[in-house]
């Protein structure tokens, strides 16, 4: 064990963890909107809208995140036509390719989490709102969405943690996130165990924070 290397690499890895957190938070925010949008589509009675939303979540939950990143980054980069469009400004950057892949992936899982949360709302709750003369729109925004979000907290907390670990794949498209920098340090020191232990420790610490934050929210909004 090379303790000195572990201590020396710690600050470098810590600043790389900031990139990891940035990737995570941006893709989670975008993914949450995507997820909510598709969850609502899933609840639609129209079979085309419904199966479109189902198809999306099926494809993105059914393929590995690594494959999705590679298709978006290396795959789309091969299409010559695309390179002449404005889209290329975004797709040229590995950062945005990673964000797109992560957001679409977590969006698919989030849509499923939210859909099932919507479906667990007891019809009586909605009927109670109706009997009070509240409009459907207000029932949806003020009753269904808040309950669904609370119901989905435990499952969504898991999704955040899974996504946090998933961001390590950003290093495969040249981003210097926590895993990317760890690999870089290993490439010059040839000591993978020490560096990965420190990197793993930082991931574990981030999981600890996320886990406790979700737990706090669950207690705070207990009903």
């Amino acid at each position, binding site marked *: 064990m090379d303790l000195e290397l572990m201590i020396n690499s710690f600050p470098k890895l810590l600043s790389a963890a900031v990139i990891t957190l940035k990737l995570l938070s941006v893709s989670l925010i975008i993914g949450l909107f995507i997820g909510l949008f598709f969850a609502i589509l899933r609840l639609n009675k129209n079979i085309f809208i419904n199966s479109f939303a189902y198809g999306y979540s099926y494809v993105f939950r059914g393929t590995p995140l690594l494959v999705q990143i590679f298709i978006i980054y290396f795959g789309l*980069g091969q299409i010559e036509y695309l390179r002449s469009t404005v889209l290329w400004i975004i797709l040229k950057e*590995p950062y945005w390719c990673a964000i797109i892949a992560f957001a679409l992936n977590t969006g698919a899982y989030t849509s499923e989490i939210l859909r099932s949360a919507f479906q667990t709302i007891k019809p009586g709750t909605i009927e109670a709102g109706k009997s009070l003369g509240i409009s459907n729109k207000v029932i949806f925004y003020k009753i269904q969405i808040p309950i669904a979000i609370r119901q989905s907290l435990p499952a969504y907390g898991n999704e955040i943690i899974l996504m946090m670990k998933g961001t390590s794949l950003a290093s495969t498209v040249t981003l210097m996130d926590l895993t990317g920098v760890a690999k870089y340090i290993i490439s010059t020191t040839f000591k993978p165990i020490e560096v990965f232990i420190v990197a793993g420790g930082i991931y574990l610490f981030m999981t600890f924070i996320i886990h406790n934050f979700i737990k706090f929210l669950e207690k705070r909004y207990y009903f």
Partner: protein
Amino acid sequence: MKIFKKTIFSVLLSLFVMGNVYADKIRIGTEGAYPPWNSKNEAGKLIGFEVELAYTLCRYIGQQCVIVEQDWDGMIPALIMRKFDAIMAGMSITAERQKAISFSQGYADEVASLAVMKGSSLEGLDTSAGINLTKPNAAAKKDLKTLTAALAGKTVCVQTATIHQNFLDSGDVGKVNVRTYKTQDEVNLDLASGRCDAALAAAVAFSDYAEKSGKPVVLTGPTFSGGAFGNGVGVGIRKDDTELLKKFNAAINKARKNGDISRIATKWFGFDASM
């Protein structure tokens, strides 16, 4: 229960036998993704200069060899952790690597070069044909200045943990935006897509790609050798494995004397890259 015991026994026995089969064979690690040094054919079989040379050297050593595939970025750690006994993967002998492992004498040497897509502003830089960075002369220093100016703010792509990455990180050509990839294939893909303004690797890696893909990849600037680019490519061996190091050095001597290295090199590179 009897079947269960039998299964356990046969599994253990096969493990024991397999362990023994590999015991007296030299295991050589290669990447299989850096043509023409080492690569894979359509059938997934390892081929290339180093694969053929490895079998030749093993014949001189008088021991059987197994060639093991290993990702480039884990090559040296895998050697140290005894996943195999020697590296033959286009790995240049550098001072940095020698801190971790030993190298045999060099068996081949080959220059590095920048590559760009045809029509790039970096095409046709006004430099000499080749520079040696071990003791850079006036012309070499002038070329480095030209490169520093040309590459300022540009994205240059390299494979991770290579001499090419070391060179760009060393600051000899100023502050360039270095992007690292797991394999040379990925570097080539992103060079062609336009995400990289330029790429740096062994010159043959680019000409091989240009030939196979038909993409208009052209070399630019001087070719590089010496300094951060090391002193030729050798067999990487664990530091405590002095016995094997001696065997490889002797085998390389014999193979060189008999003209085997230059014959195999000419076959795969199209020119004699042996040393």
